[in-house]
């Protein structure tokens, strides 16, 4: 099985290689500062998508973001039978696997594109995992995260994401 995980990791690294990442600690600190800029927060309030098919949406006050998986992902995964939700109050870093979606055909990690603390989880999904096939970008959100930074990775607007999935 080792081979499989290596491949998965290799794939992860390939996809993350294209993302700009802070190289030094001080850059990380600078990033923290940037979040206070009005223009950046405003941009984040619209729903944004990752290349891994998660979406995030920032609350009006810019402190909490809601995270879920895209309609495209839900459709492609097929019948979802189990959702592993993150632990409440868990500190998460950008790129962490905070949960998983199990469908008949596969198990897929949910990666958070933003760092912070898990403030709330959609526990209804524990008993009704199939909800994620119905309204993945609405009622079937996965977690709310009290953010501690800005996403460093590539985030796409709805239009960009649609183009990305059509391109793929």
């Amino acid at each position, binding site marked *: 099985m080792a081979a499989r995980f290596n491949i998965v990791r290799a794939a992860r690294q390939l996809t993350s290689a294209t993302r700009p990442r802070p190289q030094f600690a001080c850059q990380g600190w600078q990033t923290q500062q940037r979040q206070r800029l009005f223009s950046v927060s405003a941009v984040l309030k619209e729903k944004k998508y990752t290349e891994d098919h998660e979406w995030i949406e920032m609350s009006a006050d810019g402190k909490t973001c809601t995270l879920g998986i895209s309609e495209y992902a839900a459709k492609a995964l097929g019948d979802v039978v189990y959702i592993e939700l993150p632990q409440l109050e868990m500190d998460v870093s950008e790129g962490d696997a905070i949960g998983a979606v199990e469908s008949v055909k*596969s198990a897929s990690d949910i990666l958070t594109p933003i760092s912070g603390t898990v403030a709330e989880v959609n526990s209804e999904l524990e008993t009704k995992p199939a909800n994620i096939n119905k309204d993945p970008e609405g009622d079937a959100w996965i977690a709310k995260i009290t953010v501690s930074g800005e996403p460093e*990775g590539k985030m796409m607007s709805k239009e960009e994401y649609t183009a990305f999935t059509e391109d793929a």
Partner: protein
Amino acid sequence: MASKRAATMLQPAANGLGPPLLRSAWSQKLQYTARALSSQASQPRKAARQSPQQVRYASTETPKEQLGRTGLYELHSKYGAKFVPFGGYSMPVQYSDLSIVDSHNWTREKASLFDVGHMVQHHFSGPGAEAFLERITPSSLSSLPDHQSILSTLLHPNTGGIVDDTVIARLPNKFYVVTNAGCREKDMAYFKEQLETWQSERPDQAVEWTILDGQGLIALQGPLSSQILARVLEDKSVKDLETLYFGQCVFATIKGTDAEVLVSRAGYTGEDGFEISIPSYATEAITQFLLDSAKDELRFAGLGARDTLRLEAGMCLYGHDLDDTTTPVEGALSWIIGKDRRAKGGFYGDSVILQQLKKKSEGGGVSRRRIGLVVEGSPAREGAEIVDEAGEKIGNVTSGCPSPTLKKNIAMGYIKDGMHKAGTEVSVVVRGKKRKAVVTKMPFVPSKYFKQPTTAKA
């Protein structure tokens, strides 16, 4: 580097660690590497277009080689197939009309048609054929009646490890053997080598080996299979069908054609059904004929449903649930070893296998056994560790999925001898967490074969 770190952090608990959304899919199950292109639906357009991108597939094949296509490729496309590389072929994993679960249920309630033309069909004939096949398998072929088939395994000399699992049928004057697509290269080399050895030792016992290249093979599976098949057969063949029982095969003629097909009452779903071997030139036409004559009852089904169906039926997928290191006894396939073979041996690995068949008090037994599991909560997939109460590893899962029929998570795996009894409570580690699991008898879903009535024989 966040994502890298995440992966590293989770590494110690990596059992069942899934890939990110949509990057996984069939990579786990169908033994080709996890490239994004092959992912379920992640890039369907490219896959469907057969873009000339480099592809990697089963390790037994030379990488970068062009994927093969069965004679039904165009027909699959017409029916909205989503293709994945499997066993060196571009094969449908599902079709646009039904999800995997829908297709699975359709098979259990009505009937589905699977293209299994990627599998390798062989003929072995000549005066030495039976003895040769009895050397490389533990089956009693001498007592196998005409037009009867059995599940068997090709064995490695000395170790008794399984080279491949196979179905062997006795036809007049020859044996018809079907082996796995994923083992094509390995099996070819194996047969070649074993035949050379055989011929040098037994020059008077010639064996002729033919591969039925291009021959079509389709599987019609589900409770409505026999009535659907009857619609397309000549009257005489329809009559034959009435007394064709599970494990038997018969040559039949399709209405309005001169094509002779071999119909075997067999399958990989646990349902009643048939595998139909068709001459290359007629494969597409006959398949279309079948689909057209049962428009409301019969649908194409792909590898996705095939996998969940066979797992519910407790059947092995070679390369996952069986491999070169597994013996038939470890693989819970002792039942395929013929009675006379147990007494006399004379097959590859017989000393190992016959010893394993003995009682523990006589130094027999095995250290691990293939078992079924029902897992609570998250489904356990291939590679997940099976642990005991103390958290000690006692085995691992080799196949697993949520069962669409039972609505429970089912899995197959190997467990330490002694823990293999049905009802034994164990745990399976998925994403670093222990999940309760119970050793369960297989098949998980009772088989519904069309068996010969026992009273008729008496």
